[in-house]
C-alpha cells in the first residue's frame, strides 16, 4: 500500500513542479520576507521583531494559499480530465489514491515551505547572528497548520468536484478556524444552554487554528515547554486522521 501511495504522491508532485503556477505565491512570499527588513527603520521596535512577525506571517499566509490552491484541485482535476479512470482501473485502492493525492500535496507544500523558511532564517541570521530554537519550533507549528489545512481541502475534494467551491470553503474554514476561540466569548455572553451546546459542537468539529498560534508566543521568546508543543502537534495529527477517515467514507462509493 505504501509503495502505491508513494508512486501516486510522486506523480502528483511532479505535475505541480512542471506546472509552475505555484511559484507565484513562493516569489510573493520571498519578496515580502525580504521587504520586512526595511520596515524596521520606521518604528522603534526591536529590529528583528518585524522581520520575525512578517516572515512567519508570510510563510503562513502564502503557505495557506499554496495548500488551498494545490490541494483543492488535485482530485477534481483527475476526475475532470478522466485520468482517474485509467488509474483506478489499475490495482489501486480508492483510499490509496486519496492518500497519494494528500501526500503529493503535502510534498508540494513542504518544498515551498522549506524554500520560504530558508530565506526567512537567512534574513534573521543576518540581523541577529543567531537562530533560536524557538523560531524553529514556530516554523514546525506553521507547517503543521498547513498540513491540517491541506487535509481539509483533500477531504472536501472527495465530496465536491468544483475546485472553486472547494477552495472557497477551505479558505473560509481557515478564517473561521482562527475565530473559534471567540465563539466561547459568545457562548459565555449568551448564557443559553442551547447556544452553549451548539457552540461546543462547532468548537470541536471545526479545526482550532488558534492552537498553532503558540507560534506567536514562541517567536516573542516566550518559553513553551516541548510537551505543550507536542500536544498541539498531536491535535493536528488527529485532525488530519479524521479528515482522511472522512475522505475514505466519501470516496469509497463515488462513481466516475
Amino acid at each position, binding site marked *: 500500500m505504501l509503495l502505491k501511495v508513494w508512486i501516486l504522491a510522486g506523480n502528483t508532485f511532479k505535475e505541480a513542479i512542471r506546472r509552475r503556477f505555484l511559484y507565484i505565491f513562493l516569489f510573493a512570499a520571498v519578496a515580502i520576507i525580504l521587504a520586512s527588513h526595511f520596515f524596521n527603520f520606521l518604528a522603534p521596535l526591536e529590529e528583528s521583531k518585524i522581520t520575525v512577525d512578517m516572515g512567519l506571517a508570510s510563510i503562513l499566509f502564502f503557505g495557506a494559499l499554496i495548500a488551498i490552491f494545490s490541494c483543492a484541485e488535485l482530485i477534481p482535476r483527475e476526475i475532470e480530465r478522466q485520468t482517474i479512470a485509467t488509474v483506478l482501473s489499475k490495482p489501486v485502492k480508492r483510499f490509496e489514491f486519496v492518500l497519494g493525492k494528500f501526500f503529493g500535496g503535502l510534498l508540494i507544500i513542504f518544498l515551498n515551505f522549506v524554500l520560504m523558511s530558508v530565506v526567512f532564517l537567512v534574513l534573521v541570521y543576518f540581523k541577529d547572528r543567531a537562530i533560536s530554537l524557538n523560531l524553529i519550533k514556530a516554523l514546525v507549528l506553521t507547517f503543521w497548520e498547513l498540513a491540517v489545512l491541506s487535509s481539509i481541502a483533500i477531504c472536501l475534494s472527495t465530496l465536491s468536484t468544483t475546485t472553486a467551491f472547494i477552495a472557497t470553503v477551505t479558505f473560509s474554514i481557515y478564517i473561521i478556524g482562527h475565530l473559534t476561540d471567540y465563539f466561547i466569548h459568545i457562548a459565555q455572553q449568551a448564557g443559553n444552554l442551547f447556544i452553549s451546546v451548539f457552540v461546543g459542537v462547532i468548537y470541536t468539529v471545526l479545526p482550532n487554528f488558534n492552537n*498553532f498560534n503558540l507560534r506567536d508566543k514562541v517567536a516573542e521568546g516566550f518559553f513553551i515547554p516541548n510537551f505543550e508543543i507536542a*500536544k498541539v502537534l498531536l491535535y493536528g495529527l488527529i485532525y488530519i486522521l479524521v479528515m482522511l477517515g472522512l475522505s475514505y467514507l466519501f470516496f469509497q462509493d463515488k462513481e466516475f
Partner: protein
Amino acid sequence: MFLRINPRVSLSLSIILLFFFLSFLQFQILSFRGLPGRLVIKPGEFAVLVALGGLRGVAADLLYLKADEFWQEKKWKEMLPLYRAITVLQPHYVDFWSNAGFHLAWNLSFASETQQEKEKYMQEGIGFFKEGISYNPDVYKLYFDIAFTYDHKLKNYDEAINWYRLAVQFPEHPTYIERLIAHALKKKGDLEAARQEWLKLQKLYPDDPYHQEIVGRNLKIVEEEIQKGGQKK
C-alpha cells in the same frame, strides 16, 4: 463466535471517538495557552483581516506603525484605542505595554490641561503597566516602568521603592535599578536608609568598575549630608 463489524461502521465510530479525544486535547491545550482577549479593533481596519487570518503578530505591528504615526502627530487620543488592540493581539510582547503605559502616564498627562486630568492619565498609565504584568509576570520591565513613573512623575517614593524592589527580583534586570532605590530613598529624605542601601550596593557587582565608581561617589555624598546634619526623621 465473534462479531464482524462493517468496516464503514467501525471507521465512523472511530471518527466520532477521535472527535471526543480532540475535544479533550483542546481543553488541555486551552488550559495552557488561555483564551485570547476580545478583539477591539474597529471594523474596517485592515489589521482585522490580518488578525483573522491568524497573523496576530503582523496585525499588532501594523497597528503599532499607525500608533507611532499618531504619536508623531501628537494625536494622543487616536493613539490609545490602537494600543488597546495591540496589547490584545500580542499580550506577551512587553514593549507594547511599556510604550502604551509611557504614552498615557507621560505624554497624555503632559498634554492635559487640568491637574485632575493629568493625574487620571498617570494612574491609567500605571494601570496599563499592571495589566501588562498580569500577562508577563516574570519580566522586570513593567515593574520598572511603574516604579519610574511613581519616582519621577508622581513623586511617590515609597511606591517607587516597592516597585523597584520587585523589578530587581528578576535576573536580567539592569544594574542601575538597584541604584535608583538608593536615589529614591535619598529623595524621600531618609538619608540613613539611603546610606545603608549604598553600602549594600558596594558589595554587589564587585567586578563592575562603573557601578563601583558611582556607588562610591554617591555614598560619599550621602555621608557628607548626614554629617552636615541634614538627616530628617
